[in-house]
């Protein structure tokens, strides 16, 4: 959509919401008269305060200063080596996320503040690793994300259109997480917002 197109849609939505609000107010007044009740509450929600989130993405969150670690482990002892690496990092109280079993070993993300300590631990453990720094995690958030077919296609499309490389993905019930280069943050958020947020009630 062009920016003008987007603006037109938003205006149309506002128009519908405002019309609805007026109708509602009339309806409440009528209801009050019919029932002869002196003190009657108006509807407690306005068009801006919904009881339920609309299906679809409601916001795009960004977590900055992320490092991605790829750990290469020998195939023969991969299961036990994965455990050894994770337990060693856990004993040093290093929080990890986006933890993935990889054919070549293991990968995870961590905050930059833990990167140096993690590197020292991994060196000490004698494992081969590769850290990719200067990353962010962008996360489109929606209610019941996993029930929304097509959301991954739209997220990928938004990032591909913006020429943003995706290093890793993860999903939870209310978000899809994408690890991308920090330098691309603004472009990614702008594209995701345009692709996912400005769609009114269109189910994804």
């Amino acid at each position: 959509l062009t920016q003008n197109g987007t603006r037109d849609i938003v205006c149309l939505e506002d128009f519908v919401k405002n019309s609805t609000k007026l109708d509602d107010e009339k309806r409440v007044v009528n209801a009050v008269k019919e029932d002869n009740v002196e003190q009657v509450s108006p509807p407690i929600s306005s068009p801006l305060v919904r009881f339920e989130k609309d299906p679809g993405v409601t916001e795009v969150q960004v977590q900055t200063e992320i490092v991605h670690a790829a750990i290469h482990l020998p195939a023969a002892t991969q299961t036990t080596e994965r455990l050894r690496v994770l337990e060693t990092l856990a004993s040093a109280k290093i929080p990890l996320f986006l933890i993935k079993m990889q054919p070549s070993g293991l990968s995870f993300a961590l905050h930059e503040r833990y990167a140096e300590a993690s590197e020292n631990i991994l060196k000490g453990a004698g494992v081969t690793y590769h850290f990719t720094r200067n990353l962010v995690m962008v996360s489109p958030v929606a209610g019941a994300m996993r029930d929304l077919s097509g959301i991954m296609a739209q997220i990928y499309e938004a990032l591909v259109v913006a020429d943003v490389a995706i290093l890793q993905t993860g999903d939870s019930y209310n978000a899809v997480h994408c690890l991308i280069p920090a330098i691309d943050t603004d472009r990614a958020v702008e594209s995701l917002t345009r692709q996912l947020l400005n769609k009114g009630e269109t189910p994804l």
Partner: protein
Amino acid sequence: MKILVQKFGGTSVTEKRRGDAVAKVIKAMQNGWKVVVVVSAMGRSGDPYATDTLIDTLYSVDKTVPPAPREQDMIMACGEIISTVLFAQALRARGYESVALTGGQAGIRTNYEFGNARIEEINPHYILRMLEEGKVVVVAGFQGTTLPGAITTLGRGGSDTSGSALGAALKPHATEIEVEIYTDVDGVKTADPRVFHDQEGKLIANHHAPQTLRTATYQEVAEMAHMGAKVVHPRAAEIAHQYHIPLWVKSTFEDAPGTLITVDDANTSPDAFRVTGVTNTGKLAYLRFELPVFAQEDRTQIELQLYKLLQQEHIPLYLNSIDGCGFAFAISREHLIRLREMLDGLVIPINLGGPYGGSGAQSNSATRRRPPYGRVYLLGLGITGGMRGRAYQTQRELLKGAEDFVEVHALEAEVTENCTVVSVIANRFQQLPGVMAKILRVLHEANVIVYQTADSAYSVSALVPEDDAKRAVRALHEAFHLGEGA
């Protein structure tokens, strides 16, 4: 006035068990509450007025003609309406004034999405008036009306959602408000008790039975529900969270205190960082696509094309991951046959162009190119064990003729069927280092293979063989000391 919203599920409002539910209402009134009751349709599938039975009745007219969504919602809403009237009558028979309301009469207005409507607004004035007159208000759950008055149903968890939303709507008019969700268990459990008992109902040796949580946060409950626990529906928890409504989960048939669902407050709650429960959900198939080393730059484009195809077929995907030599995701197993039909033998073109330039705006008709004019990837998605599908074999032969003009690469998927997800609900997972390590250690020692993992702010999940799921749940439940007396 103190207002209590009590929601009773289908098993609590059957003729046989309705008396227990009515007793809960009377007890609340004796404790000074004004009570709004929300009821589901009576019984479960197969019972005369259960929702499934009503739908079957509609289809019995002519199975070949799908009903209009609007009319289907009308008949589905009848189960709750019948339940409402009978519940109100049961109260009347015990000497309590009551009034039965449909969702629309209770002021619940929804959008137009028949079958899965969203509550947009509630005008509670009629409920308030009835409460002020001393009546118990019995509202049909799972339903509302559109602005012009068409009946809509709220989809999964609809009655829980009705209860929670009514609590939110009544809150500004109450000195005190609470919502109680009554079920046939005594609260939110740390795991499904059925997993811990044998066929004779005896507790499996060397295990502690799941315990009922005294409190849980809205996020924990929403996560547990999404990950397979049959507790409060996440929609209801989200509304209660948004409007700060204390939400109780209790048993209709016992006097146990139940579980209070409240705000997650890291500053005040001693349980802010904790493991809450273990769940299991999903019959999944896991697909991993391995790309040739030289093709890594095409990975995103290939993924995009695949995901678009899945979007067209309305197939959600889970547990996405990217690795150094490919990508992977899981789908519900029910979609696997369709997916195999779609993907096996599929040709994905990348940067395909003719002799006079690439596709799109980059083409330059002044320069004649030499082949190859781009790349195509041929997908192979065979049966478990790695055998390629028939469509792949056929396409492979056909594409031999094109190899003088385009690069043709095989892209084969390894399919692991019969998987499921076992999740540990861990409040603020990222502040709990070592949860994933512990999960993998426990599963390793229980001889459970882990295909993939996933984590979010409130859970850590492992994709495991379905046959091992119960053993995995029990092992994790023990390891995190979640059982009674553990």
